[in-house]
C-alpha cells in the first residue's frame, strides 16, 4: 500500500534532521570547548539526572497507591495524569512561579512560620518544574507495570497469605526492576533538551543548559561557531541517551487500562493512610499551579494586550500546519514499516536524538546568508515542531498500522486496492481513531511549544508561548497568566477537536 510513500517520507525526514546537523558539524570545526561549554554540559547532565530520579522516585508511591486503591475520582485522576503532556511548558512554569515564587503561597507560609524562604530559580527550580511535567508520565508508565502483573500471580499470592511486605518482595520489586530503567531514561532524555523551563527558571553561569547556551550564543553573542559546537555536544548527549534507551526499550504506550479482573491487595491500617496522603499530596502538587494560573489569569483576560491575538493566530496556524505534516509523515512510515520495510522505524525515531535548538541552529546557519531569519520564523517553527512531534505520532500509529496490514493487507492486495483508493477506503476509516488522537496531540504540542521560534522571531512571527515569555520577562505577570489561559484553551481545544474527529468514525 505505502512502501514507496514510506521510503520517500523517510528520506525527507532523514534529510531534514541530518542536514542541519551536518551543517552544524562543518561550522563547528576547529574550535575547542571552553569552560562555559563544559559547565553547560555538566549542568545539563546534572539537572537531567536529578529530574529523572526525583520524577520517578515520586512516581513510585503514587503509581502504587493508584494501582492498589479504588476510590471515587480514580479514573479522572489517571486521565488527568495524561494532561501535563499536553500542557504548554510555559504555562506550567508560570503556575509553579505563582506557587513557589517569592510572592507565592509556599514562601508566604514559610515567612509566616519564620522559616527561610526557598528560591525557585536555579537548579532546584529547574528540577521542580521537570518533576511537575514528568512525574505524571512516569506514573503512567509505572502504573502500567503494576497493571501488567498477571492476575494468576496475585491470586497465588493471596492464596499463600502474602503480607504487603512479601507482595513487595516477590511481585512489585521484580516488576519495578524491569520497568524503572525505561522510565528513568525516558524522563532523562526529555530533560536533556528542555528549553522553556531553563529559559525562565535557569540562566546565569551556574544554571545554563546546552540548549539554553545555544540560544544565547545565537541571540546575544551572535557567535555562530560556538552555537555549532554546542549543538554537536547536544547531539552527542541526546544520541547517547536515545541509544541507551534503545537498549532497555519498552514501549510506554499512552492508554493505561483502568481496571483489571483481579485487583491488587489493598492493605488496611497505616498503609491506607499513607496511600491516601500520597494521593492527596500529588493531586495538590499537580493541581495547585494550574489553579494559581487560573486565579491570576481570569482577571488578566480583561487586560490582555492586543498583540496577544496575532500571536494566538500564529500559534493556531503553526499547529494546523505542523500536525497534519507530522501525522501524515508518521502514517506513511508506519504503513511502510507494517509492510516489512524495517529500516523505516529507526528513521522515524531519528528526531528523538536531536533537539529543537540543534535543528534550529542548523536551519539558521543554512538560511542566514540568504534571508533574514525573522522572515522564516513561522515556516521553520512549523517544520521543526512537526519533525519533533513525528516520533510520538509514529508510536501512536505503528501498532494500529501493523494490525491493519496483518488483518487486511492480503485482502487489499487481492482486490488491487492501492494508492489513493486504499487511503480513502481502508486506511482512513480503519485508523481514524489513532489518527485523530495523533493529530490532536501533535497540534497541542505544536501550539504550546516554545523552542525554535525563540531563535528566529523578532517582532514578527511571534507565537503565543513566546509572547507569554516576553510578558513574563517584562514582569507583567497578570497579563502573562491571562495569555496562558488563552494558550491552554487553544492547546486543549485543538487536542479535543482532533480526538473528537477520531472518535466520530463508524466502528464495525
Amino acid at each position, binding site marked *: 500500500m505505502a512502501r514507496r510513500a514510506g521510503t520517500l517520507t523517510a528520506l525527507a525526514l532523514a534529510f531534514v534532521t541530518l542536514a542541519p546537523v551536518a551543517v552544524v558539524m562543518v561550522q563547528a570545526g576547529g574550535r575547542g570547548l571552553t569552560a562555559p561549554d563544559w559547565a553547560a554540559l555538566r549542568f545539563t547532565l546534572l539537572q537531567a539526572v536529578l529530574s529523572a530520579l526525583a520524577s520517578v522516585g515520586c512516581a513510585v508511591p503514587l503509581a502504587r497507591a493508584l494501582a492498589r486503591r479504588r476510590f471515587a475520582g480514580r479514573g479522572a485522576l489517571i486521565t488527568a495524569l495524561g494532561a501535563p503532556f499536553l500542557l504548554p511548558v510555559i504555562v506550567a512554569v508560570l503556575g509553579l512561579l505563582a506557587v513557589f515564587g517569592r510572592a507565592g503561597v509556599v514562601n508566604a507560609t514559610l515567612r509566616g512560620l519564620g522559616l527561610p524562604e526557598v528560591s525557585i530559580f536555579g537548579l532546584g527550580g529547574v528540577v521542580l518544574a521537570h518533576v511537575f511535567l514528568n512525574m505524571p508520565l512516569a506514573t503512567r508508565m509505572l502504573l502500567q507495570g503494576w497493571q501488567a502483573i498477571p492476575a494468576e500471580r496475585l491470586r497465588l499470592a493471596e492464596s499463600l497469605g502474602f503480607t504487603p511486605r512479601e507482595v513487595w518482595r516477590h511481585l512489585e520489586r521484580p516488576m519495578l526492576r524491569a520497568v524503572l530503567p525505561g522510565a528513568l531514561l525516558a524522563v532523562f532524555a526529555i530533560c536533556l533538551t528542555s528549553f522553556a523551563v531553563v529559559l525562565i527558571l535557569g540562566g546565569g553561569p551556574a544554571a545554563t543548559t546546552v540548549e539554553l547556551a545555544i540560544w544565547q550564543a545565537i541571540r546575544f553573542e551572535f557567535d555562530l561557531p560556538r552555537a555549532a559546537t554546542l549543538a554537536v555536544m547536544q547531539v552527542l548527549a541526546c544520541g547517547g541517551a536515545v541509544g541507551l534507551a534503545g537498549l532497555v526499550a519498552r514501549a510506554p504506550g499512552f492508554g493505561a487500562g483502568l481496571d483489571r479482573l483481579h485487583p491488587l491487595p489493598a492493605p488496611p491500617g497505616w498503609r491506607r493512610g499513607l496511600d491516601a496522603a500520597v494521593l492527596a499530596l500529588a493531586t495538590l502538587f499537580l493541581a495547585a499551579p494550574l489553579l494559581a494560573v487560573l486565579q491570576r489569569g481570569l482577571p488578566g483576560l480583561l487586560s490582555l494586550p492586543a498583540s496577544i491575538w496575532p500571536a494566538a493566530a500564529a500559534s493556531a496556524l503553526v499547529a494546523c500546519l505542523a500536525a497534519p505534516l507530522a501525522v501524515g509523515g508518521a502514517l506513511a512510515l508506519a504503513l511502510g514499516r507494517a509492510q516489512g520495510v524495517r529500516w523505516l522505524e529507526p528513521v522515524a525515531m531519528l528526531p528523538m536524538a536531536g533537539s529543537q535548538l540543534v535543528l534550529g541552529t542548523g536551519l539558521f546557519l543554512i538560511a542566514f546568508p540568504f534571508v533574514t531569519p525573522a522572515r522564516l520564523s513561522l515556516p521553520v517553527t512549523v517544520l521543526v515542531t512537526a519533525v519533533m512531534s513525528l516520533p510520538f505520532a509514529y508510536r501512536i500509529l505503528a501498532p494500529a498500522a501493523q494490525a491493519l496490514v496483518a488483518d487486511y493487507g492480503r485482502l487489499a*492486495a*487481492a*482486490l*488491487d*486496492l492501492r494508492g*489513493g*483508493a486504499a487511503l480513502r*477506503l481502508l486506511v482512513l476509516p480503519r485508523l481514524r481513531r489513532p489518527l485523530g488522537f495523533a493529530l490532536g496531540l501533535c497540534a497541542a504540542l505544536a501550539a504550546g511549544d516554545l523552542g525554535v521560534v525563540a531563535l528566529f522571531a523578532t517582532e514578527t512571527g511571534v507565537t503565543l508561548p513566546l509572547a507569554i515569555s516576553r510578558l513574563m520577562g517584562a514582569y507583567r505577570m497578570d497579563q502573562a497568566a491571562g495569555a496562558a489561559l488563552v494558550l491552554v484553551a487553544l492547546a486543549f481545544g485543538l487536542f479535543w477537536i482532533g480526538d473528537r474527529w477520531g472518535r466520530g468514525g463508524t466502528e*464495525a
Partner: protein
Amino acid sequence: MAGLRLDHLAIVQDDFALRADWSAEPGGRVAVIGPSGAGKSTLLHTIAGFLPPSEGAVLWQGARIDALPPGQRPLSILFQDQNLFPHLTIAQNLGLGLDPALRRVDWRAVEAVLERVGLSGLGARRPAQLSGGQQSRAALARALLRQRPLLLLDEPFAALGPALKAEMLDLVDALAGDALVLMVTHDPADARRFARDTVLVAEGVAAPPVPTAALFADPPPALAAYLGGAAF
C-alpha cells in the same frame, strides 16, 4: 494451451519445501488435500501472488503471471477469514470487485449478484450484521463480480457447519461455470462432494490432479496415513 500451468514450481522457505509440476483445465473443480503443514495454503498463496516462487513459473493460458501483483492476476481468492472489510457495507465490499476505488461501480450489477447468492436487500448492511454463512455468500458474490477465470478457495467455509458448507460448495459449483476452481480442504467429504479431481499435497510435493473417486478408492500411502482408518 492449458488453463493453469505450474511449471517446475518450487517454494522453499527455511526447512520447508514444496514442488509442483502440473496443469489444470478451465472449468475444472480441483480439491487440494493433505495433512496440515504440508503446504496446501502455501501452494494457493503462491499461485495468488502472496509468496514468490523460488524456482519455476506460474502460467495462465500460456502466459506467465508470477510477476504480476496479486490483484492483477486472472484470479480471485477467498481466504479462511477476513474476506470482507468490516467498516464498509456489503454492497461496497462487492463494489470493490468492480472498481477498487468505488468510483465506477454499476450498483445494479451488485444488487443482481446479491440476488443470485440469496442476499438480496442486504447490500446496505455491514458484515457484522450478517451470519457466517451470509458473509461467505457475500465474499463469493464479489468473486463472481470480478469474473476472473480462476477461483482459489483457501478453506473459506471451514467455520461453517456441515450442512451450510455443503450448500456453499453446491453454490460455488453452480455459479463458477467455466472458471477453474482450486479448493483447499482437510475434509475428504468436501473433496468427494465438490471436486472431480484432487491434488494431494504431502511430503514436499503437490502431486498432479487425479480423479477424486479413483484417488480415494486406492489411496497412495501418504494419503492413507493422513486419512487413517476412520475417514470413510
